[in-house]
């Protein structure tokens, strides 16, 4: 099924709701068309095209609810899926936390997340982009391994109380690792876009190539506390672990880094450096998101950390009602305000430090302090007197994003980046951090 327009989605969802006999009913439809190409050892590898759709019906009798879905769209199938969700609801145990459905909502305008250019991309365009990338590896006698994926998707939500929401988006992901043929140097670059025409595979591959060539024969330096400059993708994997834990209920229950003794939380307290401002904005031109959350709540621009103080936490509708707070849904994406300097200018202003291209295999060590562990990867360099002096061997770190943002030295210009761990897109600056804790060396290149 192609990408449905708002009107087409409305017609089919209205028809499905017409079959409902439950106290409350929600219908949701979504679909995606996409393709990908993967290459390694300078040659194309697995690649493919995937097309899927889902129609989901949630029925509720009192506080008992059930869910069923189908991917056939004739009248009999639509009636069947509604009946099945109702049967399941009758079997389900009562959930005291079930919340009655939202009525009609007012959403902001559709954000500019859909690109016709991206939606039209096929095998040829993907292969052309990869050909440009492979040309760079050939020219530099390097080994390329990369991935390019594009998709177009839509989603629409309607319920028996009159709520209707619709959204479309397109996504492009490109990431590339270049390695020297002797395996002693490695470099990486990653990009995320809504619009395929912004992709410059050659340029990004050249960045990875430069890092690979200049990271050969890395020196081992002692682990310990160092000033680091984290490139935006390295910042992403550290900070997202903090965003993932900004849930009000977890904090109130005493089991998150936001909790304090006696059922209190750190909300409103100075948590990190006062220059830290983190927010979400579905209408950001660089990082557009959906105007509504999955349960139909409207998304809005929300400040999460303002001048270093936690301003808001997200919450379920149930917990918000129980505790009397505003029911702010999980954000679709996160933005951190940056400074004005480029990465090069940050390096220039650094007396001694380490430039980190990428952080890898991030895992929580202690949820109470948000202590994380992981390693540097694909381009780690020693900086002295404002210049990159030599490549250094990779480190394992043990560090908390909260401690890290308290040791903030300087921020660069924010740019769109992608977490290599969650594939989530963010708008984040490179950060210069004091006393970042490296605990051991790794032989990995």
């Amino acid at each position: 099924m192609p990408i449905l327009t708002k009107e087409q989605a409305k017609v089919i969802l209205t028809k499905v709701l017409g079959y409902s006999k439950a106290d409350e009913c929600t219908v949701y439809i979504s679909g995606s068309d996409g393709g990908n190409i993967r290459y390694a050892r300078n040659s194309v590898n697995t690649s493919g095209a995937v097309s899927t759709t889902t129609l989901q019906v949630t029925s509720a009798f009192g506080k008992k609810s059930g869910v069923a879905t189908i991917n056939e769209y004739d009248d009999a199938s639509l009636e069947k899926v509604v009946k099945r969700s109702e049967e399941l609801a009758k079997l389900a145990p009562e959930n005291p936390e079930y919340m009655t459905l939202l009525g009609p909502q007012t959403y902001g305008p559709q954000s500019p997340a859909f690109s016709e250019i991206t939606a039209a991309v096929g095998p040829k365009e993907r292969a052309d982009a990869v050909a440009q990338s492979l040309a760079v590896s050939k020219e530099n006698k390097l080994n390329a391994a990369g991935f390019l994926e594009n998709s177009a998707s839509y989603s629409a939500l309607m319920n028996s109380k009159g709520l209707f929401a619709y959204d479309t988006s397109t996504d492009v992901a490109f990431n590339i690792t270049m390695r020297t043929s002797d395996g002693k140097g490695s470099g990486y670059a990653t990009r995320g876009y809504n619009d395929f025409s912004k992709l410059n595979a050659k340029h990004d591959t050249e960045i990875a190539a430069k890092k690979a060539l200049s990271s050969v024969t890395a020196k081992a330096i002692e682990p310990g506390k160092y000033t680091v400059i984290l490139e935006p993708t390295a910042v992403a994997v550290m900070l997202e672990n903090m965003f993932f834990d900004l849930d009000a209920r977890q904090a109130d229950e005493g089991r998150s880094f936001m909790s304090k003794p006696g059922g209190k939380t750190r909300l409103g307290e100075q948590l990190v450096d006062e220059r830290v401002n983190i927010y979400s904005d579905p209408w950001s031109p660089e990082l557009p998101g959906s105007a509504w959350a999955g349960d139909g709540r409207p998304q809005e621009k929300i400040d999460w950390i303002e001048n270093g103080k936690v301003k808001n936490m997200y919450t379920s509708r149930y917990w918000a009602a129980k505790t009397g707070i505003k029911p702010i849904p999980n954000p679709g994406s996160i933005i951190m305000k940056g400074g004005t300097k480029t990465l090069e200018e940050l390096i220039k202003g650094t007396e001694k430090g380490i430039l980190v291209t990428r952080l890898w295999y991030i895992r929580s060590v202690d949820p109470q302090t948000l202590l994380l562990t992981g390693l540097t990867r694909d381009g780690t360099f020693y900086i002295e007197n404002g210049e990159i002096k030599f490549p250094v061997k990779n480190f394992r770190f043990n560090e908390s994003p909260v401690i890290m943002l308290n040791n903030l030295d300087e921020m660069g210009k924010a740019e769109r980046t992608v977490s290599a761990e969650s594939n989530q897109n963010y708008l984040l600056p490179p950060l210069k951090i004091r006393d970042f804790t490296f605990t051991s060396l790794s032989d990995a290149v």
Partner: protein
Amino acid sequence: MKRRNFIYLTGMGAAAAMLPAIPVWGNEIPIEQSLEYVDPAVKKMLSDVALNAARSKGATYTDVRIGRYLNQYVVTREDKVENLVNTESYGIGIRVIANGSWGFAATDKMDKDGIAKAAELAVAIAKENSRLLTSPVQLAEQKGYGEVSWKAPIEKNAFEVPIKDKADLLLSVNAAAMAGGADYVNSILFMVNEQKYFASTDNSYIDQDIHRIWPTFFITKINKETGKFETRNSLSAPMGMGYEYLDAKPEHKIQTAMGVLYKGRYDMVEDAKQGAVQVAEKLKAKSVEPGKYDLVLDPSHLWLTIHESCGHPTELDRVLGYEANFAGTSFLTLDKWESKKFNYGSKEVDIVADKTQVGSLGAVGYDDEGVKCGKWDIIKDGILVNYQAIRDQAHIIGLDHSQGCCYADNWSSVQFQRMANISLQPGKKPLTIADQIKNVDKGIYIVGDGSFSIDQQRYNFQFGGQLFYEISKGKIVGMLKDVAYQSNTQEFWNSCSAVCDERDYRLGGSFFDGKGQPMQSSAVSHGSATARFNGVNVINTGRKI
């Protein structure tokens, strides 16, 4: 990431933040429908449509996977059933070779026209991509098996157990934890049924039925005065079994100094009861003094270290560089294997790959490119002797056949090399857990898996755990906290000085081994008996914010 999706779906965490509130694994369906199998004759007919369509467009090889992937989750917290989900995903994935290049397309439009179109698209992609090839795909020979089938040897299909029984079990688990003093408890039953059909131009038509189950819980206790909290997770293992996994008899229980451990089957309520006591102990435990310790590692912990430091570096796709952009490469390069003397570990270290192990997560009759599965040595007497390969890699290590390690996590995902069950073999001399502890002067006994992280070539790793017991002069003297060990793979496995005998051999494993782009999850088991590692570096992970 799928692991993250799971965390989201179960409503436990953290990662909820960034994900849309939409089911993540597929379509949700009522319970009764999950019991209807698609007739193999229908699947053969649909497969032939794809095989013929691809051939007519110029494919020189085609394989087809028709998959029906069913999941059921029962999710609870304290005295509430939070979520009851049935998901189904049904569709077809078609992989071809044309002009020497791979192409793949997947669709859920399961009529003849939809399938033929997907086959044509797969061929078009292969042809388009062939201009980017350095050499054509070279497949190891594979004889066709004709029409065959394989079923996991389960005793009780978990999908046939009434929802009420499952909800009641989890609520009893939660009640046991709360009665034991827990502040919060989440518990989950996660059940999987993969009904998958494989057909290829090698004349194989293979119908398989695979079952997996994972009961687990997470207990939290908070010190109200200090605000400190600790968690104790279930000591269960995800298994390639039916609901019988939850029916533990006395012979499935190992009594130890720290409590009961489970072998082959699991008593979830009993573990929750002891978990509540242990989480309280964790809150009062002594913070570890960093330094070198002899570690005694329980199989409920060691499986993850085996997975990361032996399973992954011996995957041939990583060795060759296919994963360089994401999961990484491997320090176990071909020259180390060719030398026949690369000392991966001590003489105690025998590691075996086995895709046939009964009850394991990776057990299947045939892999996802139609290769009958088997068992082989990976590390023998501490020496690297083999890798894990699939059809288009076999020739690189001089094999004339695939080792059957190909897997796709869904009909919509392309199959590629995934980890077999990789297990440390038990010691040959009689040795119990009590003997291991008795022989240690200064050490830590670690039970259960915790935080885990390893570099992209699998040298440097750091592992936490669930329970840490200080061993002094052959005796357990109390519990420790803030423990993690950091080591280098080769150094660590060379420090392995003793492995308990087969009486102690148990499986651990994961539903969520992530690899590939787009990322796919694979379920895999790792067996071992309690093993000792000498002089490992332990760090203290306590911090203040």
